[in-house]
């Protein structure tokens, strides 16, 4: 981890800076002392995004859409209302959620080239690779190359749609249900659904972890 430099600061830099740990602690200390934040509220926020909100939420949405055509239709028409049906709330970074359906003819994938916008209520906080310069730069100009690195070759003739989350809309991909899963229950299906498949950089496979099958 590189040290946190402040080139535009005009104060003394001779004192050792042990990096972000100390600086963050100082800022929290000050804000708590000023009564501007409540440490317990901060703890609740951390706990929420570390333990309660994550890609398992999105996986539940996907599995429900696979087994319930009516739900799928409602999800594609109004994702915010549909996820509330299964007890999820469209909280921060999900107020304007749209679900994009992958089919044998159309593959969707999601990026935020300008920062790292991501649909928190259904996928949690984004992984480091999603926030990386490599993904943000290449997803729009070399999406098929990126997919190859993630382990599958999108066949020529499949329309590839890359969604750059440049405004307040947030996107989640509804991946295709893998073949041979007709006998699985909804919760078993949810267990197959990976985070990357809901970003659009992977296919859902069955058995889980099997090589990705060609889309066509």
């Amino acid at each position: 981890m590189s040290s946190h430099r402040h080139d535009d600061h005009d104060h003394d830099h001779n004192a050792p800076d042990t990096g972000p740990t100390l600086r963050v602690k100082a800022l929290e200390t000050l804000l708590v002392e000023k009564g501007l934040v409540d440490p317990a509220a901060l703890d609740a926020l951390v706990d929420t995004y570390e333990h309660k909100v994550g890609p398992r939420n999105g996986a539940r949405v996907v599995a429900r859409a696979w087994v319930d055509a009516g739900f799928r239709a409602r999800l594609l028409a109004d994702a915010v209302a549909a996820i509330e049906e299964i007890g999820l709330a469209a909280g921060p970074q999900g107020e304007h959620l749209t679900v994009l359906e992958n089919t044998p003819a159309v593959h969707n994938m999601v990026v935020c080239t300008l920062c790292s916008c991501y649909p928190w209520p259904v996928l949690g906080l984004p992984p480091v690779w999603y926030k990386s310069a490599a993904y943000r730069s290449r997803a729009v100009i070399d999406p098929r190359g990126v997919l190859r690195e993630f382990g599958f070759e999108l066949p020529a003739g499949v329309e590839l749609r890359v969604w750059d989350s440049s405004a307040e809309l947030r996107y989640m991909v509804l991946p295709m249900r893998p073949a041979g899963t007709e006998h699985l229950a909804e919760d078993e299906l949810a267990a197959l659904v990976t985070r990357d498949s809901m970003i659009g950089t992977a296919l859902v496979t069955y058995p889980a972890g099997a090589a990705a099958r060609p889309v066509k």
Partner: protein
Amino acid sequence: MNGIHDMGGMHGFGPVVRERDEPVFHHEWERRIFALAIAMMGSRTFNIDQYRQAIERMPPDQYLATSYYEHWLYAFERLLIEKGVVARTEIDVVMAALRAGARPPQPPVGKAESAVGAAENAQDAAGVAEALGGGARSLRYDESYRARFKEGDRVVARNMNPVGHTRVPRYVRGHHGVICRDWGVFIFPDTHARGEGANPQHCYAVEFEARELWGGEYPADDRVYVDLWEDYLDAERDAHSSEAKSLKNGSRKAVAKFGAKSHAKSRPKGRAAKPMGVRGAKKSAPHPDGA
């Protein structure tokens, strides 16, 4: 601003490196800066566009050399100082004390009265979201503003290079696209970041063909969708007339030729007219359960 954050289409960053079994946070300080930033946005100390702009103002070499949450820390500290919430000297004093092993965080003198404090007993995401304003945080307005464009309209992303915050990526500026969805009316980030008001206007999903953005050798089937506000867009015919006025004959011919190309005609032979965007995704779903 034409900053390092605007990365779409750049080369040279190498492969996308993934971490196996990645934790949500890698360090305790990441947890704290994440929560601090969300809390202070929740109490309206700064808005999300000001926060993004603060990250964008990071010197580019520093931006590339630091992690995502270090960007957050930079923006957070800078905004607190600029807004007069804390003074740089205060930060220095507390850091020195902490470094010397003194001064653990003290309990607040009075109970925090902000919405943030209400999240204390939140049991779940919904509770936290509600405490932070939930839907009230939405940047969408009611839709009583006239829309300049409708679905199917051909548009050009303006060639603009504002030095302040903007959400029109460089890689689409000057390029032709099609309105594929009107998302409704949203606060305009450029003015919102400057503290110059909401300037609400329609925001659209605009479809760009990969070949239009990157050149003829790119796959004909690939498209990029970018959500763009009205002030980032011109109707194609308006863009033509203003371009034609300023261009010499040769260039004008090229523009005219492009303009004559209908969207449908640009499709590979034998393909149906383009299914557009989200609506298209629904239409083109004859195999709902996959192969």
